[in-house]
């Protein structure tokens, strides 16, 4: 079912988290979590339809209390690779069936996520790949 409405949790509402939330909220139920209320301004200014929740993203205990199992996908997109790792590791430990994808800012840190079997994406590497591809196709 390609068109199924999914429940998506996004942890970290910076530039990437808010962009992702705004795109996904058109077709899915999106819950955005950040420790700073101000960060949600990026969403409210742009007709965001979904839920926001203020939660200290450093507070593992509080994150564990969320109904993460109900989410079809959890994106962890803070700018801190170490924090992304700790959160993703903690969520996977809580329930390995939860779908998690963590942002890796520094390509050199990818191996840590690989070693822990955590799904990740690396925006810098993806951009570089795209740029190289574009120039080679010209």
């Amino acid at each position: 079912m390609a068109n199924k409405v999914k429940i998506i949790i996004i942890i970290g509402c910076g530039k990437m988290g808010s962009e992702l939330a705004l795109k996904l909220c058109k077709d899915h139920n999106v819950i955005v979590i950040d420790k700073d209320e101000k960060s949600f301004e990026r969403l409210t200014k742009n007709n965001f339809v979904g839920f926001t929740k203020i939660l200290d993203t450093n507070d593992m205990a509080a994150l564990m209390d969320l109904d993460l199992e109900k989410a079809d996908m959890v994106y962890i997109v803070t700018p801190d690779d170490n924090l992304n790792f700790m959160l993703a590791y903690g969520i996977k430990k809580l329930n390995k069936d939860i779908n998690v994808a963590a942002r890796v800012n520094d390509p050199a840190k990818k191996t840590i996520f690989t070693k822990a079997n955590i799904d990740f994406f690396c925006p810098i590497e993806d951009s570089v790949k795209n740029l190289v591809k574009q120039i080679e196709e010209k």
Partner: protein
Amino acid sequence: MSRTFYIIEGSGLAYSLAKKLLLLGNRVFYVSDKKSNLEILDGLKINFSSLELIHQDPTDICWIENLDLDRKVEAMIIISEDDALNFVVSWLLKQFFKEIKVIALVNSPEDEIMFQSIEVETIVPIRWMEKLIESSLIYEDVTDFFNPYVDKLSILEISIESKDKANCKKLKDVNLPQNSIIGVLIRKNGEILVPHGETVILSGDKLIVLSLKDKVDEVVNALK
């Protein structure tokens, strides 16, 4: 016997800890990604040749993998102010060196469960401070600060004055409640002894009493 310790990150705390370990004759490796931290510890090198400073990102997996930990390493102590960094380093160390003792600073008590899940020893200063403040608010004599079983067990320090019930009494004649015991007696002159039934309690003595938490009032009542 000289032992080897790794201290990873941390600034002022790392300095004090390194100094202490070096004074005890140990070998210390200090690792930090921050030049400013290394500069803080650099002053110790003048007096201690067994201190080595390493400028390195401790979350670098290649570096950890290639660490030469063959020599007797007593513990890896990770004490940055960033719990997530402490977690990543602890986790990586545990992946490559299962047997090594890893001790991590946990700045937010809420993060402790994460570290426990990877079997790392934790230091949680905020918990200690809470205990200290709580105990000084509830009973001024309680020395619960060093008591890991603080939820159930109280350690009381009670000073005996001449007007107190226990003054000039033999220990066996003091009517302490069940589940409590006078563990140590400290005389006015500083002499410390483990009292027995015939020991006489005197004015000026300090008694260290172990008691279940719900018996504290009865203990105080029996002695004071």
